[in-house]
């Protein structure tokens, strides 16, 4: 484990990706202490960037920098929430199903196979459009997490099944270890890096899904997110009239976030799969 970590830290793309990601998290946590976040109406509609409003204002005259800080916080929150839900659920069901088999495995398999072909975007639209009241950021995070866990379950299941016949599992069993003990202490540690990679991808897909669903006007009603900023820019004319500050910074932040997560993932793949190294 330590050696892997050392290898990871030797990979420049991992450092860049992790650095970028930690930077955005740090920004989301610390910026409110240095910058006075004010989501009130302060200026005219689409005021252009100036000394007071560094990135201008949106259609209501709200300070864009404040909106972006708030939006970044929301997006990270949704991403981490969906990542935790989807990875935990997927790992638990996948690892149990892959190791144990039985009816639960069959059910999980059936569900994952179904939802691999039914687009989760469609499911998201259907649920969100029926919740026209009280659609909060947390609720959206929950919905995304509960619609995307199948993918991680499938990935983990395959890995767990391949570990099943290892010698040390048999040894643990002879020593009288129960199923849950084996799963937690003898299988999960082997999959830890893999599960972490899944988590990273799920966080990225959570951020993207929230942005996408917000862009079509089904976003959270209780807060500002990067997706709702983009939705406003598109619907209120900022995009069509070429007010770059209305949509460009939000787009860049989402892209940087997702890009950082993706390179963390590919660099880890490179370290864990020596064949890709050269």
């Amino acid at each position, binding site marked *: 484990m330590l050696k892997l970590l050392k290898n990871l830290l030797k990979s420049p793309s991992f450092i860049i990706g992790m650095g970028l990601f930690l930077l955005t998290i740090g920004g989301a946590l610390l910026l409110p202490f240095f910058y006075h976040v004010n989501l009130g109406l302060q200026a005219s509609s689409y005021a252009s960037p100036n000394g007071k409003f560094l990135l201008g204002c949106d259609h209501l005259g709200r300070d864009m920098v404040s909106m972006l800080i708030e939006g970044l916080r929301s997006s990270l929150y949704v991403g981490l929430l969906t990542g935790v839900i989807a990875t935990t659920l997927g790992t638990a069901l996948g690892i149990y199903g892959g190791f144990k088999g039985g009816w639960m495995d069959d059910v999980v398999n059936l569900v994952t*196979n*179904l939802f*691999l*072909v*039914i*687009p*989760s*975007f*469609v*499911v998201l*639209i*259907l*649920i969100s*459009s*029926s*919740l*026209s*009241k*009280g659609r909060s950021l947390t609720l959206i995070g929950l919905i995304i997490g509960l619609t995307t866990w199948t993918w991680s379950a499938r990935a983990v299941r395959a890995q767990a099944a391949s570990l099943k016949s290892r010698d040390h599992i048999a040894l643990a069993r002879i020593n009288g270890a129960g199923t849950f003990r084996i799963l937690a202490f003898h299988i999960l540690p082997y999959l830890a890096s893999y599960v972490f990679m899944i988590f990273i991808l799920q966080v990225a897909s959570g951020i*993207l899904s929230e*942005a*996408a669903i917000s*862009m*079509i*006007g*089904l976003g959270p009603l209780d807060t500002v997110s990067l997706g709702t900023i*983009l939705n406003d820019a*598109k619907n209120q004319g900022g*995009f*069509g*009239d*070429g007010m*770059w500050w209305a*949509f*460009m910074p939000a*787009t860049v932040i*989402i*892209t940087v976030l*997702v*890009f950082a*997560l*993706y*390179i963390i993932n*590919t660099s880890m*793949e490179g370290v864990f799969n020596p*064949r*890709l190294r*050269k």
Partner: protein
Amino acid sequence: MLKQYPTARYILHRGGWYFLTFLVAVTINFFLPRLGASNPVDIIMGKAGSGLDTEAAREKEESYLKEFGLVQVDATGTILRGPDGKPLKSSNVSQFFNYVKMCFQGDFGTSFQKYPKKVTTIIAEAVPWTLALQLPTILFGWLVGNILGALAAYRRGVFDRVFFPLALLLSAVPFFAFGMLLVYVCAIRNSWLPAMGGYAGDMVPGFNLDFFKSAGAHYILPFFSIFLILAGGQAIGMRSMGIYELGTDYIKYAKWLGIKENKILLYLFRNAMLPQLTGLALSLGGMIGGALITEMIFSYPGLGMAILSAIQGQDYPMIQGCTLLVTISVLIANFTVDILIGFLDPRVKAGQMGGN
């Protein structure tokens, strides 16, 4: 049964599975919208129940209630009403069966927004645009991405070092972000290409040269915004597949035999292509979701726009019709890829047949 015809058996087996998935999709499509606190049925019922509406509006509401089987009707088709004058709601189960029946007849009901237009009519107008945009884009993006990925894996060196981070960056850019950027740079800042719509606003669609020219010009930006990102993602997958295949014995053997590079590349491509094809099937759902949002950015007159305007107008029959159609297309595409893989890779068919 069908022991002698493994191909037919394979197709039937997969077909049966997809039919089951289709049924699940219909069920989800019916029940999910009814989960919410403000579910569509209550909205229609609420409108119909209030007696303030004019006679015409009332008639319209009643036709919805009957069409979707939301209320109990007697033999003559009059709506049964409770003591307070409100229509009696029919049970969820009977609503569901009514819905399934309608789906199988290819009837998605009447649109709220564009009354009395049928949902199917509106969808039929949108689908050709979506098909024309997405089918070539996805196929072409897949092909180009894979060829570039295989090349990067095989050549490595400078080409790979430039190409790989670029592809990685492209694959990380969300569809909508890239679309917005393209519109901003190519259409708003510099008016090289038109930004919105599928053809110039003052034109009537028809088979003439001017219309095709205009449609062509409007096609370029949405095409590239989907194509580049897709190709980037596929190239990355193909690159790691290709590197894996390069380490296998048959490639080493081919190299020792002194077979020409191009030929080895062809072998490599053919073998690494199968997992990529499976990958295509698995990611189709996500791709189509992303491509629909791209359509919204460009106000392209396809399904994406239809969904967007339906959501904005709370046009539930339209939303449900579109989502079901999208799901069905993804199912059909997946089924096609499945069958294709069965033909291309004998192991898959054999795996299905043997064992068990």
